């Protein structure tokens, strides 16, 4: 007893007291069971929230990469036309492209390269020799000042019959749709989970205050004011919320790192694009700790507001 008591005096005691919930005697009976339940529930909720947010961030990042890749490259296809020299057409088309502003490089694929791309559908090289293979030109675009692709396409097909420009628009759109959908769903899930966290804190705080109703009453009669009593509860649940948030968020962070690491290996999971990202980038950290902070802030606010509203009701 006396050793424990001595903690409260001296420099060490003062230090301890300056840390919330250390060396302070709580006037409020903390219910161990409920506290642990609260931390567990909030940890799991934060875990789910952080995973969702990370997945959303990864999806968004991947989708963006793809979109940038797609937007920075267009393909021009020249179909062999009866009665025309495809090689002349290629020269003409690439000249037009080189003369257009906003295009950084024009690369003509050799016949074999084009054939290679068609191989899955037309069979292996040996039999393809005789076919009038369509030829491809890949065009790098300056994404800062891109050319008007529609007019470029028109120009090309006017000048060279059989030339067509594929700007991957359909794919870009489709991908954009998908990632938007996923982002919306993730955001909804995140919102739901954070709301649940807030709700859980509100209920826990109210429950604790209802359970401590008589103590609050006695404290009032003894001459304690609302601020004093509120102080006994307020930080308690905020701290529990933050603790749960850190636990769950930390676990999620580690899991995300582990998953990313597993994708590094050749036998890994079939997500192209993701595996090219760094394992530990500031976005992952930012997203995870953003979620943890969000949970902490929601927990703090929920507990503070609830404490003041409930004290008013109990008095």
């Amino acid at each position, binding site marked *: 007893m006396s050793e424990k008591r001595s903690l409260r005096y001296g420099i060490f005691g003062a230090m301890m007291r300056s840390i919330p919930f250390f060396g302070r005697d709580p006037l409020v009976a903390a219910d161990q069971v409920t506290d642990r339940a609260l931390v567990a529930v909030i940890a799991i909720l934060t875990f789910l929230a952080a995973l969702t947010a990370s997945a959303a961030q990864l999806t968004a990042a991947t989708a963006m990469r793809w979109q940038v890749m797609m937007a920075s490259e267009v393909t021009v296809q020249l179909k062999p036309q009866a009665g025309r020299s495809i090689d002349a057409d290629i020269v003409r088309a690439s000249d037009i492209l080189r003369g257009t502003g906003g295009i950084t490089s024009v690369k003509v694929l050799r016949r074999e390269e084009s054939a290679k791309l068609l191989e899955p559908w037309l069979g292996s090289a040996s039999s393809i020799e005789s076919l009038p293979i369509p030829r491809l030109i890949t065009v790098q675009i300056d994404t800062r000042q891109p050319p008007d692709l529609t007019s470029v396409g028109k120009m090309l097909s006017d000048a060279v019959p059989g030339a067509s420009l594929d700007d991957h628009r359909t794919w870009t759109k489709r991908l954009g749709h998908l990632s938007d959908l996923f982002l919306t769903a993730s955001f909804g899930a995140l919102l739901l989970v954070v709301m649940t966290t807030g709700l859980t804190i509100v209920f826990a705080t109210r429950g604790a205050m209802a359970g401590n109703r008589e103590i609050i009453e006695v404290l009032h009669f*003894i*001459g*304690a004011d609302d601020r*004093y009593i509120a102080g006994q509860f307020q930080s308690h649940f905020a701290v529990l919320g933050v603790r749960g948030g850190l636990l769950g968020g930390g676990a999620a962070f580690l899991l995300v790192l582990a998953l990313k690491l597993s994708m590094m290996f050749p036998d890994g999971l079939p997500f192209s694009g993701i595996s090219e990202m760094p394992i530990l980038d500031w976005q992952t950290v930012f997203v995870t700790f953003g979620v943890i902070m969000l949970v902490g802030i929601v927990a703090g606010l929920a507990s503070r507001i609830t404490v003041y509203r409930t004290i008013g009701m109990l008095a």
Partner: protein
Amino acid sequence: MANQLSCCNGIEISFDPHHALTTLKKVEGSLQAFPYRSVGELVRFENVGLRYGVGAETLTDVSFSIEPQSFQFLTGASGTGKTTLLRLIMQALKPTRGTVVLFGQDTSLLEKDGLTALRRRMGIVFQDFRLLDHLTTYENVALPLKVQGRDEVTYRAEVTELLNWVGLGELIHAKPPILSGGEKQRASIARALVAQPELLLADEPTGNVDPSLARRLLRLFVEMNRSGTAILIATHDLGLMDQIDGARRLVLADRRLYVEASDV
């Protein structure tokens, strides 16, 4: 236990709850209330009526006042409203009609902060003790000082001394659930007295202690009274009331309060 019993056998203990005002002396037989001077009433009830819910009034047309440093008993059969009357004074209840004036302030106009200030001038012994179960006896008794923001070093010795006086010296670190009925009662009395209030409200403060301990506690009330505290004790115990000469009796019967003139 032996220790507790022995401390009731008339040994002189000096007890200084606040500013070394009080010294308890062995007073045999005739305890005497401090003759009060009127320096503005602490409590004044004017035609107060109280109705719980929708039934008949529990208290009707209650008018009385409590002078500073006065000593009075409140008595009446079980269920006549003694606790109710005390709760009206301690602002746990608002009167259905009439006026309650506390320390010169009309309580119907009271703000929340004002209420806290008034409550710090009162000490309350609840009929059901209302100790905080998770705090030790010491912490419970020190609570009124602690919530006022006082530093523990300034009151530690006082609190310990007061606990010794009520015979709980050995139970300083015990928590209420392991205290006996009488020990809880004494702890709650100590808590009410520790801040040397101007007004002490005690609800059946000796219902769970033996007669000799009751006498000892009564002596404590008398000494507090001498050092300036007005005392109101609600009790059924006729023997207890007979021990104090010059104490007024407020009697509740048939929903009304009858004030017997003090026999000084």
